[in-house]
């Protein structure tokens, strides 16, 4: 079970959700992660944008509006953004601790 208070466990939880193809849940937990651990407000704005784009993408995919490769390309871009955000926030958090 994920420790609520561990930033690395929480980051792994999100990665596990991505691996399990539960990207919607991953984006929601990303918002929780950012809210709990990020200092800079811009991170929350970035996370909100990622979630909204993912919701729109899901809708387009469900409506059959996107070719498989196009959907995959857009999803991959979002996933890299999620993973990058997790790293940035962990680094920011660790830097704050060190200071």
């Amino acid at each position, binding site marked *: 079970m994920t420790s609520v*208070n*561990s*930033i690395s466990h929480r980051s792994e939880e999100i990665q596990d959700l991505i691996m399990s193809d539960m990207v919607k849940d991953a984006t*929601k937990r990303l918002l*929780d992660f950012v*809210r709990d651990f990020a200092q800079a407000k811009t991170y*929350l704005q970035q996370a909100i944008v990622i979630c909204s784009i993912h919701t729109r993408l899901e809708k387009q995919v469900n409506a059959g509006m996107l070719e498989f490769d196009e959907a995959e390309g857009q999803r991959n871009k979002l996933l*890299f953004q999620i*993973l990058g955000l997790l790293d940035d926030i962990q*680094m920011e958090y660790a830097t704050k601790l060190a200071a």
Partner: protein
Amino acid sequence: MENVEHSAKQLVADLKGQAQVDNFNQVVQFAKNFAITNALKHKALVLNLNFKKAPSEEKRSALLAQAFELIAEIEKDHNDNADSALAHRQKRAQEALAAHIQQVKIPDEIVFSTSGLTKTYKNSNFTLGPIDINLRLGQITGVVGENGNGKTTLFRLIIGELGNDEGSIDFPNFDVMNNGKINWPKAMKHIAYVPQELPKWYGSLEDNLKFSAAMHGIKGKDNQEEVDYIVTRLGLEEHINKSWSQLSGGFKARFSLAKALVWKPRLLVIDEPLANLDFKAQQVVLKDLRNLANSLRFPMSIIISSQHLHEVEAVSDDILFLNKGEVTYYGKTKDLGEARQQNTFELDCAIDAKSLKDKLSNLQILDIHHNGVSYVITTPLDVDYKTVLKALMDQGIDFDYFRNISQSVKRLFDKK
């Protein structure tokens, strides 16, 4: 840790032997173990998902080729950077974070408590209580019981809509006591209530959410940000431009929840929130509530009533069971049934009660009755579910449903 060359060789051999999802998971593990550069770990994770979703053999082959390239890249990255300043910095950061875990946690804080709380309706001769409960930050308390057993009355007492006849209410950490009396307007600055009957919203949904946040002091840029956060967090973006009358019952409930959560209350009181939701939406809402209650920065206590016993049990830390206004059980959900004297099972099958009793006569059955939906079978403690299941199979009884409810609150409903 294993040697990178050996692990890479083994992984490539495994993938060439059988490029299955399990082996692809190992690529992620390999990246976690050996990649120094985070971008390579990310690539492994995304490649893994793409492989799982690949629609054709051709696509999988292309992804496999990418996996081989990635393994080689990770091997090189490890050999080039294992002793680099970046690797040492990452290690130090990880150690600092691990040490820090112990210091960050949700405060073990009681936000609401009652002692001997009692409310009597003289006209109907109904008495709720006495009730002694403690609601803590980060915890969910599920209130269950049949209709008319006092759940809504309890909630209206918690939010000050009704006055109690006996006993006391306390908000130990809200600083709202004034000469021994509760300053309710001050208390309600911390408490959000979502009633069973949802009042109609006038105006745009977004304006309503902004207004709710503003009423609790969230203004300016923060106001928009909190609204954006809660709308996105609850997955309501697609519906934000609709009017109240355009929403289904389920989305009305979810927007009401958003309105309650947008200003980050410390106590959330929700009466039957699952009533208008389909099964999937129920799971989503309960999971959201569980995670939001556990927020590190804005933890809250949630008290929730529902007829969906199994779903509420699954997310509640504590359960309060009301029967005709009296507390039949209050304690940890995981302890339900610990002190029971017997086991209880539900069974749905086509045969009549007498035949069922006859066929299970070897089991020392204490009682079998039909609750209108399924049979409820009660046995001594030493007759467990395996024994009952075996007897059903041995007797050739066809059944559609069998459930051990010995440790579920459902057992309390099915008591004769």
